[in-house]
């Protein structure tokens, strides 16, 4: 079930200089919304920029949906201008989210704004009995970590620039954890180089992870073929899979990273 239309912005909250949160009224027409899925959100009321922006669900409430948005360019900057109480044009839920039924011990690895969709994931898991280990990487000061800290047996935070935390990239703690722990599933979301480096690591160690990937999108539903990534097909072949429709979740052993 896909909703196409306007939904009320119930709450707008500034997280820090770069990030903000939208809580949107969830309507019945949206049906079930799963972590890892996304909505295509109109950047402004005047219809500029033209294309809707894909934004992951970062939490789902009884009748709310939460988005956590990082200001990147003119589209996300424009979104910040919606006022509480106004209607936001959007479409969704879209794509295939995470698969998470039946796992007992999982590792979630997020980088920057890539932490947002994982927050939705762990908040869906809480109720069941899952042991969560988290590794969160930031460029500067951490944010969005509270739910991870509260719900994870282990929660490692690294930052490239904030001296209060372990300096470096998520790959460092992950390497160590993969040596001592066994996980039923690993979930990753973050920038392309991080996904690529971790996938190399997983492949070399025989782990399989669910990656939430990102690409520029237009239709958001699988019709226009502008959002493809290379995935394996047969023993030596590849195909171009649609990030929006076949993903955005792909298993780490499916994806072919370029360069």
């Amino acid at each position, binding site marked *: 079930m896909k909703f196409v239309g306007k939904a009320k912005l119930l709450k707008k909250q500034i997280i820090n200089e770069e990030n903000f949160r939208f809580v949107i009224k969830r309507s019945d027409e949206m049906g079930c919304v799963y972590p890892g899925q996304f909505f295509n959100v109109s950047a402004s009321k005047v219809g500029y920029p033209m294309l809707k922006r894909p934004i992951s669900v970062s939490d789902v409430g009884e009748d709310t949906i939460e988005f956590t948005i990082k200001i990147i360019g003119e589209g996300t900057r424009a979104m910040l201008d919606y006022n509480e109480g106004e209607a936001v044009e959007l479409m969704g839920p879209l794509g295939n989210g995470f698969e998470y039924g039946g796992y007992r011990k999982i590792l979630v690895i997020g980088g920057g704004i890539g932490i947002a969709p994982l927050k939705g994931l762990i908040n869906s898991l809480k109720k069941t009995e899952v042991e969560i280990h988290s590794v969160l990487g930031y460029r500067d000061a951490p944010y969005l970590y509270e739910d991870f800290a509260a719900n994870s047996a282990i929660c490692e935070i690294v930052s490239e620039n904030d001296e209060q935390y372990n300096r470096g990239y998520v790959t460092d703690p992950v390497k160590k954890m993969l040596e001592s722990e066994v996980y039923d599933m690993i979930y990753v979301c973050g920038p392309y180089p991080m996904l690529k480096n971790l996938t190399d690591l997983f492949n070399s160690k025989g782990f399989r992870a669910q990656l939430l990937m990102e690409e520029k999108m237009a*239709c958001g539903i699988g*019709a226009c073929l502008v959002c*493809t990534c290379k995935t394996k097909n047969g023993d030596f072949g590849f195909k171009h899979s649609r990030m929006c429709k076949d993903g955005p979740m792909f298993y780490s052993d499916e994806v072919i990273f370029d360069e």
Partner: protein
Amino acid sequence: MNKLKMKVDLNGLTLNNPITVASGTYGFGREYSEIIDLNQIGAISVKGLTLEPREGNEGRRMVETPMGMINSVGLQNPGIRFFIENEITFLRQFDTKIIANINGNTIDEYCKMAKILSDEDVDSIELNISCPNVKNGGLAFGTNPKIVREVVSKVRKACKKHLIVKLSPNVTDIKTIARITEEEGADCISLINTMAGMAIDIHNRKPFLKRVSGGLSGPAIKPIALKMVYDVHSVVSIPVLGMGGISNTTDAIEFILAGASAVAIGTANFSNPYAPLEIKKGIEDYMRHYGHVDFNTLIGDLRM
């Protein structure tokens, strides 16, 4: 409320209404069928088909520009055979016309596809002559009047169906090309295809698209498209299927007044999947407001 006559005859292809969707923006209709009622659309031009399946271009395929987007999909499609076996039956569930958009590397490939499709259950064949001509250094077929004449005349002979020729806008003189197209037997002309465009990532100093440039579509090109539709309509007597940046009722009516017998919605579907239905209703409202009962009386009705 009066009953309006929305049917329009594109010289042998009769549409229930003048709203169609543009090739490459609608896949084979499957995805959008989950969102809107395809029975409401006059025709669907399917994703550009090639003789063999194609995986399309690698790397990033799209970059947004002011009120436009540049795409470089590279004709990713499952091939004409797969289309025939898997997609036609799906589309036939709906009361809409099927336009098969065909793309070749050589004139021979175009002819083969036209021949194959002539025996299949499609309503029209749309010859996309914006493809790079392998034998002519990769320049698009549609930019050279001589080659346009050759490809249209040969495909016409191979094609037993209604034949639309889709023109490239990247030319000095669209009128001459349109005239040739008519002379060689096209039943209808569609235009415009995308315009050559480019965007550069100033931080890593590479074009955003691996192939350097791609095709610009969307509202940005609307004034250019409208001028070309007007120009073509003024020199041919076969019907014109107009497109290029049409996003709302006003845009669509502009094209119709300029001479388009029907319009195609492309890029606008991405920002507003309801666009085809809203525009259809908008045209009906406009007709009622100005006392038109038959859509056909609106076509080319400029008062100069």
